[in-house]
């Protein structure tokens, strides 16, 4: 079993999105977990600032795009490279359980945190057990 290299996957050929920028596009790593009243997504996009994130929700398709800036000082030559710099993009299909109006996004240290609140009827609710008789 060869060295397990954590490689960033390149986005699959974009059949439906043509890009006007000539940059590599990567698929960012994502953690998705569920709490009692929301679904939380953490998206790793190092090098992306708050202004560089685009979150678009169309019907039930959520598209997250992150743009990095390409500035590298001209007289620097690359001696050793393990990662390539590029933009990020990933698409998700949301289920009906999400309350679209309440989606919140925050960006810190290159990680985008998206909180997708569950619609009222989907929240876990404790049901009290009453004793009878």
């Amino acid at each position: 079993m060869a060295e397990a290299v954590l490689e960033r996957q390149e986005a699959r050929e974009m059949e439906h999105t043509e890009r006007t920028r000539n940059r590599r596009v990567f698929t960012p790593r994502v953690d998705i977990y569920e709490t009692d009243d929301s679904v939380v997504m953490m998206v790793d996009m190092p090098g992306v600032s708050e202004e560089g994130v685009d979150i678009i929700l169309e019907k039930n398709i959520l598209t997250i795009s992150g743009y990095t800036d390409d500035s590298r000082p001209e007289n620097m030559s690359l001696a050793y490279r393990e990662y390539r710099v590029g933009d990020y993009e990933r698409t998700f299909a949301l289920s009906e359980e999400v309350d679209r109006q309440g989606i919140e996004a925050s960006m810190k240290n290159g990680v985008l945190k998206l909180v997708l609140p569950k619609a009222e009827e989907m929240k876990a609710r404790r049901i009290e057990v009453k004793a009878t008789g």
Partner: protein
Amino acid sequence: MNVSDLVPWRNRTAIRRRDNNPFQMMRREMDRLFEDFFRDFESSTDLTRGFDDGSWLSQFAPSMNVSESDDAIEATVELPGMSEEDIDVSLSQDGLTITGEKKEESEDEKKNFYRRERSYGYFRRTIPLPHEAIDEEGIEANFDKGVLKITIPKREDAKQMRKRIAVKSAG
């Protein structure tokens, strides 16, 4: 052993002709399936990464690029989700060592994970440096948007030390 080796009249060329034998194809598919399965398993624990600099114990192995100009060496490490307090950069005889720990956010009590691709844990990377050539006092480290950038200026006398060697044609 290849069944095709038994066939005497086939041309033994260096190029393997694939996709003729359905058994070979199935075997290849099975091999690939197992490889993929184990690779995913391994990448989540990341045990084999970074063997050489002793960081094989760490579960989290961030990627690093190093570039060089005439005046300085610059190393960038991708560390999304960490904060400056969790990163430690120190200079030693072996070179520049970057260590840190990426902690899991524990604000919410998580119920279920649907997907877990990001890695956490302790990491350690070392960049060997030529000590005579660098200006140790001037090393700077910046952390911005999840990327740690370390600039290591070269010493003045080291900058001139590069000599061009002329290539002469023979005869």
